[in-house]
């Protein structure tokens, strides 16, 4: 499993908005500059996050993006799931699943997915932007 560019850019966009955001919309060009990311690509990711209900787009001069919820209300796992489409390791059983594949699916991959979900349980965007959070995870 690899996290796609979309997943990485999307989370960095949210982290940046949570850290620098206020009541004023933030232009993507600012985020692109701060994060050293392509603005064009950020636009695509921002669109996806807007459709997913995490961002609000403000048009016009002084326009940009705002978080639609507080960072405390944004769950990292859910954002990740939206950006990646599907973040599980387990693959849907093929028509002819061998005994070994079945055993690995049930006893390894499904449990691995549960484990990842548990790890991120309750972790919000606010936790990520807090510096001290990092120390207690490690």
């Amino acid at each position, binding site marked *: 499993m*690899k996290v796609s560019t979309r997943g990485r850019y999307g*989370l960095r966009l949210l982290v940046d908005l949570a850290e620098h955001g206020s009541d004023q919309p933030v232009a993507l060009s600012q985020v692109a500059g701060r994060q050293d990311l392509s603005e064009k690509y950020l636009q695509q990711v921002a669109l996806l996050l807007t459709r997913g209900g995490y961002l609000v787009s403000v048009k016009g001069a002084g326009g940009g993006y705002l978080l639609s919820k507080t960072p405390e209300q944004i769950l*990292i796992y859910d954002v990740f799931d939206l950006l990646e489409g599907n973040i599980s390791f387990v693959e849907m059983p093929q028509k002819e699943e061998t005994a*070994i594949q079945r*055993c*690995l699916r049930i006893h390894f991959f499904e449990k691995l997915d549960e484990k990842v979900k548990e790890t*991120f349980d309750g972790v919000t965007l606010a936790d990520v932007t807090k510096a001290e959070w990092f120390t207690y995870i490690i």
Partner: protein
Amino acid sequence: MYLATCRGNCSIRAISDATGISSGYLEQLMIPLKKFGLVESERGVQGGYRIARKDITCSEVLSASEGEFTPTPCQDCKQSDACKAHQIWSMLQDSVVDYTQQVLISTLAAHLVEAEAGGGI
């Protein structure tokens, strides 16, 4: 995992039949597994492959065959100290690596034997 259920040496053909993995690809997989000391092989009529130790973890097998699990290409990133999103990837990586280190191949093999004995497949 199949090898862990076998008593003696297993031929590539037998492993291929049981796993559905082509023999050519199995031969390739065996190279890193042998190199990391996870399987042993013997030549000759009674030859074949067998599991080298009973306490092999899934992590060891995955590291040998796929390399270290890294969900993002951030390792060489200059910003990783400043990048807060980086914490999320570390968390994901640690979670996966921890889990795979806990699961023994022999435990999975026991589940497999149990499922076959129960006729559940």
